[in-house]
């Protein structure tokens, strides 16, 4: 009876098209947001474990939120529009370096504008590297986006202008000021990032359930049929590239400014691209919830794995642990993909379907 929709009648199309048509879902989401915005910071303030330690914020919550944002962006492209990209690491880098250069060269601008410039630059680059998608598909497109990855790895390593001639190539982001407040503590940066991520999640949800989202999915499912009903592949694909890389660019800028503080060019390597792709696939292609679930999985499983031997009382050497971690992680991904190819979001919706009928199995 937890999850029954009986008695919740929809009398207008607007109600039927609401974000979460079922009351229980609306309350759960509201509760989650209250916990994230009020509960977590209060616990940190009151020193309630585990939120009293900086570790939870800097090693878990901030990376989780920022990578979820990047996965969300990638999901627009791969999950909704069906265009494969291996260049998301590069788009994050473009976002980070564009924001850095804006902040360093135009220090009078607010830092939020610098972050925004990271998104805009990434969107422009995304559209440019999305152009081949008008001609090629699948693996060939993946290779074209891989070219973006290598090109920007090279560019930020070799062209010193981008790193402001820092001798080591490593750069440090300026502190984050928002409306006159300096966000020093990780709780403060957490709140900023959380706000941005929530805004983007709602924005993307609006796009994918509107006309443009249907165009993306139509292109993904059958591009020829999409064309004959008047959808222009050029417009649909390039908007998907633009929106996707804008979000990934913002995520890159946040990763640099709010999470790392200082970073080297190889921070945004091909590994990052693959990581994001794993997150999207494991979470569920074409699902917003999936972007968050996939990120949690990819981020948390290694942390759990690395602590497991000690917790079980079988101390192993650090290098053995890290090798084991990689191996187990890889196997988990494969097992998972075989067991549930549609991702964690699919498991969640299956569970919901069951819950709706509970306690009657059919």
């Amino acid at each position, binding site marked *: 009876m937890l999850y029954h929709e009986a008695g919740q009648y929809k009398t207008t*199309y607007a109600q039927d098209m609401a974000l979460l048509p079922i009351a229980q879902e609306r309350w759960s989401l509201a509760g989650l947001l209250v916990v994230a915005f009020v509960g977590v910071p209060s616990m940190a303030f009151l020193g309630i474990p585990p939120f009293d330690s900086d570790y939870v914020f800097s090693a878990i919550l901030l990376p989780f939120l920022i990578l979820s944002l990047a996965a969300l962006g990638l999901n627009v492209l791969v999950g909704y529009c069906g265009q494969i990209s291996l260049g998301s690491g590069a788009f994050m880098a473009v976002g980070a370096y564009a924001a850095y250069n804006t902040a360093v060269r135009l220090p009078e601008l607010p830092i939020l504008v610098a972050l925004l410039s990271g998104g805009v630059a990434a969107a422009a680059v995304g559209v440019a590297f999305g152009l081949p998608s008008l001609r090629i598909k699948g693996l060939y497109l993946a290779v074209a986006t891989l070219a973006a990855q290598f090109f920007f790895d090279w560019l930020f390593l070799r062209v010193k202008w981008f790193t402001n001639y820092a001798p080591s190539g490593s750069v440090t982001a300026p502190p984050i000021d928002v409306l006159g407040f300096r966000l020093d503590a990780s709780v403060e940066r957490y709140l900023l990032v959380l706000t941005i991520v929530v805004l983007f999640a709602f924005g993307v949800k*609006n*796009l994918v359930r509107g*006309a443009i989202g249907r165009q993306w999915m139509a292109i*993904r499912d*059958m591009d020829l049929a*999409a064309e004959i*009903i*008047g959808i222009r592949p050029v417009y649909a694909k390039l908007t998907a590239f633009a929106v996707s890389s804008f979000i990934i660019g913002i995520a890159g800028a946040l990763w640099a400014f709010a999470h790392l503080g200082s970073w080297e060019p190889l921070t945004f390597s091909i590994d990052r691209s693959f990581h994001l792709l794993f997150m999207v696939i494991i979470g569920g292609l074409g699902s917003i919830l999936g972007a968050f679930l996939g990120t949690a999985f990819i981020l948390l499983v290694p942390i759990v794995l690395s602590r497991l031997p000690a917790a079980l009382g079988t101390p192993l050497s650090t290098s053995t642990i890290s090798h084991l971690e990689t191996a187990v992680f890889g196997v988990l991904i494969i097992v998972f993909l075989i067991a549930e190819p549609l991702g964690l979001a699919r498991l969640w919706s299956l569970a919901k379907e069951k819950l709706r009928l509970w306690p009657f199995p059919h």
Partner: protein
Amino acid sequence: MTGMQAMDAMTQQTPTIQHHRAGTAEPAAGSAAARSAATRSAATGPADQVLLAVDRISLRFGGVNALTDVSFDIRRGEIRAIIGPNGAGKTSMLNCINGFYHPTDGTITFKGERRAHMRPYVAARGGIARTFQNVALFRGMTTLDNIMTGRALRMRCGLWRQLVRVGPALREEIEHRQVVEEIIDFLQIQHIRKVPVGRLPYGLQKRVELGRALAMEPDLLLLDEPMAGMNVEEKEDMCRFVVEANRHFRTTVALIEHDIGVVMDLSDRVVVLEYGRKIADGTPAEVKGDPAVIKAYLGVAH
């Protein structure tokens, strides 16, 4: 089998269709001829106004001549059948009309504009909708979303408005949702509204695909074997939808169909293709008596 027997086989199917007519709620469906007369008198333009004309179309794939020198026209408001044995070039003809294939020779005149070839986007803008021989739906999307995509050309709100959603974008969405719900009611698919089409049985998929085409409110509807692989009941429903789309929405229809009974009953005029050439063109009665057509159908009857 003689030619006469072949024609018998063709006519024998007609009674089942008569039966379908009787079974529908339509009052006095009458013959195709009577119906088209009614359509014509109701049509705005002159009775025989040509909506689309193909002129000496040829299409070659390497050594294969899919179409050779085919000319015919489609008049506003009529149901125009295209028939012929397997591989005759019927699908290729539709592909030329909506710009999937570019004919090697010939011209296509649509709404008075003459072109060497169409382009899919231009055809869609001009009001040509289509269904496919093998269903071409967006499998990951629900019935509702599939039909909503048919409104793509009519939805004007840009990216920013959709991002905010509340306001103009939502209003537009609801406006089009209403049109789509009317189509869903018309096709009697309310119960599968929110089901991803990949999970639907074939017959229903065909219906959803017709819904998506109708959502474009097309001037010309190209239907490539809309009843193939359906059982009798589904076929009857589909016939009714085609007739009603033609009559109530004033949609001109080009229909490819193998069931001769259906063709004879629904269409105003029939063009017959064989090996990429046009071998006959006229009213169902004229075509039925044409020796070349009888021979063509005999050829595949064995």
